[in-house]
């Protein structure tokens, strides 16, 4: 056991200088069986499951910055599996089940807190839609409970029940949903992968692909030199189009900026994750006490990792509409992350038309909750060349064949998903 009350006390007395690295930073070798591009949550999880589930340990994770420096450290930490469509629900529920056992599997405290995710509804039509989604979840064996107004009031008495424009009529509760400590997810997977022999290489940006005579990908060019590989998997959501362009691929993805916010630390007040159904606003309270919240993407293509003020105003207006008490709290920080917005709002875990190159992309702004299952299913695909049965619908060619998974029903407009 690396972390215990004893090691804590020992290091407190020795000036905190006795801690060992959580994982091993590596320099790239000449070749690997599998290279995973992207040292975020999905890439590290993929590497860990390649080694653990499939015995593939000659694996490198290449990260252009530092691990966990992208979207796994920029999200609002919500985990849930409250989807309505058959292509989505089994996958996200598999992710939820992996979350429920993740601390034991990784022997790492990722602080999974199943505090419940409550989606509020504000009209008869929205209640019907939520009832339908809840029933779809239950048919897939997932917990869902339709609450009336009084049940919501008992759970969250601070909500604005007197609002005339968007009256709170009730909510759809997934009690098993909640939050997790996002940075710890990256570190936990990094340690699990590293312990099984995976090389994690930081500050190593992929600048091109090695191709053989038939056009198949046989490795990558990086800022640290060329590295050969049997298979290359991309897990670089936010920058997927840029990396894919190095291989000559054009994808059904646009990059958009999503902002998130945290308030100063407050005493415990919000017991679960609450979403406002009449606008786009979601909020939970971190264990440090900060209110963590967000809303819509800014709506225009961006790689800037920062957004503009109209969305800040829109998010705060949503918050004030549903829980006016937060007007007393001050916003401490805001930041932006770059989302892979796919054309139907759902992800892609599939082979590409180029032999040897595999794609994990298009997570829109729902990638964090998917981290364990995304890694599990991408590792399965990389190791076996077959899609995992929970991710079989996430095909790249579904846009050509018409098998879209459009949970929101918006059509091919990424900025509306």
């Amino acid at each position: 056991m690396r972390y215990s009350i004893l090691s804590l006390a020992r290091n407190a007395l020795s000036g905190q200088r006795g801690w060992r690295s959580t994982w091993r930073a590596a320099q790239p070798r000449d070749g690997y069986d599998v290279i995973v591009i992207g040292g975020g949550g999905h890439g590290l999880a993929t590497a860990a499951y390649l080694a653990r589930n499939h015995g593939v340990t000659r694996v490198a994770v290449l990260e252009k910055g530092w691990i966990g420096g992208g979207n796994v450290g920029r999200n609002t930490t919500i985990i849930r599996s409250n989807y309505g469509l058959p292509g989505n629900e089994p996958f996200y529920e598999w992710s939820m089940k992996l979350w429920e056992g993740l601390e034991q599997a990784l022997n790492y405290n990722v602080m999974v807190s199943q505090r419940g995710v409550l989606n509020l509804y504000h009209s008869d039509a929205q209640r019907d839609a939520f009832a339908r989604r809840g029933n779809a979840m239950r048919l897939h064996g997932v917990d869902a409970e339709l609450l009336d107004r009084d049940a919501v009031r008992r759970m969250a008495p601070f909500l604005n029940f007197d609002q005339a424009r968007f009256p709170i009529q009730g909510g759809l509760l997934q009690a098993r949903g909640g939050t997790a400590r996002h940075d710890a997810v990256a570190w936990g997977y990094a340690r699990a992968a590293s312990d099984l022999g995976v090389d994690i290489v930081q500050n190593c940006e992929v600048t091109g692909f090695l191709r053989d005579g038939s056009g198949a990908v046989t490795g990558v060019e990086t800022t640290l030199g060329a590295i050969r590989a049997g298979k290359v998997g991309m897990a670089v959501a936010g920058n997927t189009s840029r990396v894919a362009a190095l291989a000559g691929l054009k994808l059904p993805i646009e990059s958009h900026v999503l902002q998130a916010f945290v308030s100063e630390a407050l005493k415990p007040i919000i017991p679960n994750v609450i979403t406002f159904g009449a606008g786009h606003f979601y909020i939970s309270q971190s264990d440090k006490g900060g209110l963590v919240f967000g809303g819509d993407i800014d709506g225009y293509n961006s790689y800037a990792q920062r957004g503009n003020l109209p969305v800040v105003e829109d998010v705060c207006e949503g918050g004030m509409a549903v829980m006016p008490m937060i007007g007393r709290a001050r916003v401490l920080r805001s930041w932006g992350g770059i989302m892979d917005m796919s054309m139907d709002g759902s992800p892609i875990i599939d082979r590409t038309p180029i032999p040897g190159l595999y794609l994990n992309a298009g997570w829109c702004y729902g990638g964090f909750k998917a981290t364990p299952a995304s890694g599990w299913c991408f590792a399965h695909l990389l190791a076996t060349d077959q899609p995992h049965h929970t991710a079989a619908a996430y095909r790249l060619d579904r846009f050509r064949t018409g098998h879209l998974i459009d949970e929101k029903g918006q059509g091919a407009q990424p900025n509306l998903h």
Partner: protein
Amino acid sequence: MRIPCPFCGDRDAREFVYRGDASPVRPTEPADFHDYVYLRDNPAGPLREHWYHAQGCRNWLVVTRDTRTHEISRAEFARAADR
């Protein structure tokens, strides 16, 4: 973000509706519609994109904007813009 509308002048971006990359051109062959509807270059850098001045002159514009910095270098009427 402020967009220099060629009719109204410099205006706040919230007056505009975003439509995305201006480069895809509606094809004539049904087989080409997949690429037109779904595939995007999605560059990190200058991008020519459609914005509609919904709360202003209601012109469709082609705005050249750097997706890395949000800096806008050019705005022109879509009808007059070169394809």
